[in-house]
């Protein structure tokens, strides 16, 4: 395992400590429950927004805490939903009189932890609502699974919901906006390499030099199918087609386009992918209003990328345009 790591059991806490030390004025780290809070949260005049999930997806979600985004993030261990207890403690710490919105990527483990925490918090008279993000189009048949997974599209839900909360919207309104953004957001991802969880110490799967995994999530699992490595043009076409055909996005639609790196792919390649995706979408008559290129939701050190589209309306676009300040975006 080629990693910067001491005892793998301390990987997440040591990362969180480093994060808090880098942002002493804006973030607080609560080691007992592994949580990162925005300084000054909860604010009595504002709905608190919380997202939890396994770790290994950084900058999601601990590095998305800040003005205009999350009030807290409660990460579990690498790729493991946080224990229900941690979620419950997080909710209590950011409980605002205006309520708490929980953002959850739709995975069995996460759902269960958040459901348990929500029940516990409601028993304490905290007003809580939960919103499930499920933007991954690679999981086709939802009758055979717990439904679609939440992947990189969660950024747009966080961003819109965070902006609405910052503007002073109430819990119902913030929840409505989150549901709406999720409903027009679709993502498809692919892996060039497997990733190596620190505790496992070796890659999750073997991928020959000329093969890729198409339709991967963000937990280092294999994807829907294994394919031959192709030119960037061809691979991007496969991702774009899967996303566009799903909602579907139609000629004339105004969209936000995200090219998200999975951790090991350099930003040079992500911009190259963006250029190709931009061209292919433009050829379909889809109008790209906003572009997001970089790492938003990763699978540790996996090389690969996902493409996300959000169909914009005036409300969503305006919320995405609002300023935000998070650890990864401040000079």
């Amino acid at each position, binding site marked *: 395992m080629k990693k910067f790591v001491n005892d793998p059991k301390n990987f997440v806490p040591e990362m969180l400590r480093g994060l808090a030390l880098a942002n002493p004025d804006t973030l607080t780290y609560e080691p007992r429950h592994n949580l990162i809070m925005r300084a000054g949260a909860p604010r009595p005049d504002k709905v608190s927004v919380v997202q939890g999930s396994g770790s290994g997806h950084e900058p999601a979600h601990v590095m998305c805490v800040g003005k205009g985004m999350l009030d807290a993030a409660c990460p579990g261990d690498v790729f493991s939903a*946080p224990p229900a207890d941690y979620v419950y403690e997080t909710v209590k710490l950011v409980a605002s009189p205006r309520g708490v919105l929980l953002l959850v990527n739709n995975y069995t483990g996460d759902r*269960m932890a958040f459901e348990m925490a929500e029940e516990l918090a409601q028993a304490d008279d905290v007003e809580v609502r939960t919103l499930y993000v499920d933007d991954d189009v690679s999981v086709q048949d939802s009758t*055979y699974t717990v439904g679609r997974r939440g992947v990189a599209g969660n950024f747009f839900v966080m961003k819109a919901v965070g902006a609405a909360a910052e503007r002073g919207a109430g819990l119902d309104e913030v929840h409505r906006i989150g549901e709406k953004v999720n409903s027009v957001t679709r993502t498809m991802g692919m892996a060039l390499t497997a990733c190596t*969880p620190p*505790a*496992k110490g070796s890659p999750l799967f073997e991928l020959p030099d000329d093969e890729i995994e198409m339709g991967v999530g963000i937990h280092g699992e294999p994807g*829907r199918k294994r394919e031959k490595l192709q030119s960037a043009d061809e691979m991007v076409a496969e991702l774009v087609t899967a996303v566009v055909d799903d909602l579907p996005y139609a000629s004339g639609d105004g969209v936000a386009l995200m090219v998200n790196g999975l951790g090991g792919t350099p930003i040079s390649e992500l911009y190259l992918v963006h250029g190709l995706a931009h061209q292919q979408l433009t050829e379909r008559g889809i109008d790209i209003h906003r572009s997001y290129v970089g790492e938003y939701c990763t699978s540790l050190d996996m090389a690969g990328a996902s493409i996300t589209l959000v169909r914009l309306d005036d409300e969503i676009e305006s919320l995405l345009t609002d300023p935000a300040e998070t650890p990864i975006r401040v000079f």
Partner: protein
Amino acid sequence: MQKTTDQDLEFVVHTIAGTAVANEREFCDLDAVVGDGDFGYSLARGFEIVLADWETFDRATPAAFLKKVALVISLRVGGTSGPLWGTAFLRAAAALGGRTDLTGRDAVAMLRAAAEGIKTRGRSDLGDKTLLDALIPMTDALEQAVDAGGPRSADPAALARTAASAARTAADATTSMQALRGRPSYTGERSIGSPDAGAVAVAVMAERVADTWPARP
């Protein structure tokens, strides 16, 4: 029918916990085939706490004891396993009520309740290629043996061996199944060809219980 004592219950729980900790890497590797490779890690971190807190648990009744174990697991273990295994222990506790002198029938009732709890929490069932596919066949086999009467049904060591064999056979049989729940289900048909990590863990734990039963304190 010979009674098992609370000591036996503690022995079984302790063995489960010890097996989880000892097999961390193996269970992770099983989960890595079509899952995300953290199953062993999650279980080990939880049962580690169970072992560390072992002496502090309430032992007023077997149910109270199981409830404490359940709480540690469901609140402190992450991933899917925390809520699932926590629920299993909690339901097992509930199945006991206030009873103190436990029998083979109680063991069956506890396992049955645990399986039902997992089904509810996990919105899953037999055939989904999860730990249920080892747990339920094992419970069936144990129940048959207990119901059958005769000398074997009165020997807890023999019962443990029966349960372990059934769990192993069932866990091995998950290899040819397609996962319909949990992370492996996202890979679709590619989940066929390797056993479910949770089912194997149940088998390994049951085997360890059977192996060490004769030497239990």
